[in-house]
């Protein structure tokens, strides 16, 4: 287990290196002079030169890269061009709403999508199965910001059950927090649920055909125990894998969903940074999001050995 742990951690290193090089290269591969674009249309030549010096763009490429990586290793993501605040501080301030939104989305998705997939596979070909698969195509196709507006229109405007937009920190009470976070979480969960339900169904269909399932039925086990104890347990690995991969989908969705629901999280920070062309902030957020993706998938890989003791690395 320890050997596996170390090997898996080492395997994540090249991924992180590639991400870092890529994020750095983006600034230099983009057509045109980044300093001029960041400065905007109204900037004077002097402003452009100032920005170029501040970003270190006047230095040789390799020196720029290693200075930047050196700062990263010390946890320094640089400073915002717009507000001069450290990027890590800006990200820290926006972390709670985004974490709350993703945690809630993950909870809703797994709790609803896994049972849906199990039932669809158990009753394959029935109307339940068709409804679940239909929902899956629907969830993949309807963009988050369209769903978000439909939900706002229905539950916040027409029915007036929930607040239209905004975010209340958890510290101000559970119910106010929940009433604000429910609609964005459902919005974000839809595509993710579609993905999980589809894979759960496919993985379950495979295990339900196995001999030991028939044996379990034959020895008189209740259907529920066969489904949950035998079939789902053995179908768990692909399901957990797709939950990990789906985090990329979730992160993309966060940016859009936070924008629709006016949630002051990392997604909103991203949008504000785009509009101001605040490149250090954009770089910092990409690194944080990609890092989160790598860590989640690392955890998923570790879970494999727990879920399926046959897996040895």
């Amino acid at each position, binding site marked *: 287990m320890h050997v596996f742990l170390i090997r898996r951690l080492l395997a994540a290193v090249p991924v992180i290196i*590639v991400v870092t090089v*890529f*994020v750095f290269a983006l600034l230099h591969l983009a057509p045109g002079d980044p300093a001029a674009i960041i400065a905007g249309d109204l900037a004077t030549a002097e402003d452009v030169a100032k920005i170029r010096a501040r970003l270190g763009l006047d230095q040789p490429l390799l020196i720029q890269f290693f200075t930047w990586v050196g700062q990263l290793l010390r946890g320094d993501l640089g400073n915002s061009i717009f507000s001069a605040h450290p990027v890590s501080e800006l990200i820290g301030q926006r972390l709670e709403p985004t974490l709350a939104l993703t945690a809630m989305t993950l909870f809703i998705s797994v709790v609803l999508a896994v049972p849906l997939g199990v039932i669809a596979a158990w009753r394959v070909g029935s109307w339940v199965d068709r409804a679940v698969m239909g929902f899956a*195509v629907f969830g993949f196709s309807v963009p*988050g*910001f369209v769903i978000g507006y439909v939900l706002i*229109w229905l539950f916040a405007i027409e029915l007036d059950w929930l607040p239209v937009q905004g975010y209340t920190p958890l510290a101000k009470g559970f119910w106010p927090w929940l009433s604000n976070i429910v609609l964005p979480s459902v919005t974000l969960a839809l595509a993710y649920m579609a993905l999980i339900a589809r894979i759960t169904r496919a993985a379950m269909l495979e295990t339900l055909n196995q001999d030991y399932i028939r044996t379990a039925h034959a020895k008189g086990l209740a259907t529920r125990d066969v489904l949950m104890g035998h079939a789902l347990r053995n179908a768990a690995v692909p399901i957990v894998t797709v939950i990990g991969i789906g985090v990329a989908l979730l992160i*993309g969705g966060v940016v859009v969903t936070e924008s629709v629901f006016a949630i002051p999280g990392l997604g909103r920070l991203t949008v504000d940074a785009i*509009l101001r062309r605040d490149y250090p902030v954009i770089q910092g957020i990409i690194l944080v999001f990609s890092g989160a993706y790598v860590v989640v998938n690392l955890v998923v890989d570790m879970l494999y050995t727990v879920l399926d003791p046959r897996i040895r690395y």
Partner: protein
Amino acid sequence: MATAIAAAKTSVPPRARGRVGAFLRRHPTVAIGGALLIAIVLASIAAPWLATVDPISIDPSHRLRNPSADNWFGTDRFGRDLYSRVVYGGRVSLVVGLSVAGLATLIGLTIGLISGYLRAVDRVVMRVMDGMMAIPAIMLAIALIALSKASILIVIVAVTLPEVPRVVRLVRSVVLTIREQPYIEAATAIGTSVPRIIVRHLLPNALPPLIVQATYICASAVLIEAALSFLGAGTPPEIPSWGNIMAEARPYFQLKPWMVLLPGAFLAVTVLAINLVGDGLRDMLDPQLARRM
């Protein structure tokens, strides 16, 4: 051996031509998706004739009108006709979707073939692809666009980039499975050149899953373009696209929800149609994948 060589010379995948009609009858959702998609494509091509007025003509005296006989979807804050804008908006979505699907497939196919054939290149390429896949597609596109002047071309490039690794992985896995097959060995033994093996044997095998993948990439590209334009980092505001029409209508959503929901519905139906066609193609061309999904 003789049969293997014969097979190597004539391995063309079975054609599905005559079965299409029967297939559509068995899968009505595919037929519906296909019909919708054809309608959307035709409407986008015919936009200049379908639109009632010029989509960018400003009429300040007719701002924020409700839907009426003159303005079927109402007007926006500059008095521009929303129906005409939505009709033109489809063009951007389809151009971006098709270009990205085509570009990502071509680039991914090239890299995947090389990577599958040359072990030395493969290790480096796959690490780079792993790294690229760790960056969420929208974030990668945002980073590129934030540094460029807004244009549809930049959007296409920015959306293509994150889709490439998916194609590379697919093509590479096909190459790795196929190159171990006896008939490839036979083809090599009788002196078939590598380019010829690629064209005659690898491409026909890679094509069905590639076409299916291209459809899904097209759907995903339409979604990402709309999301980018919605966030203000996509199609420049002077060209109407479903994403930026929705973004401009946001401040009026509580009073005039249709201004946001109508372009949103067109977007959703288009992506749904592409996905339905993709699922149909998958069931028809790639039964193995269909069983796994």
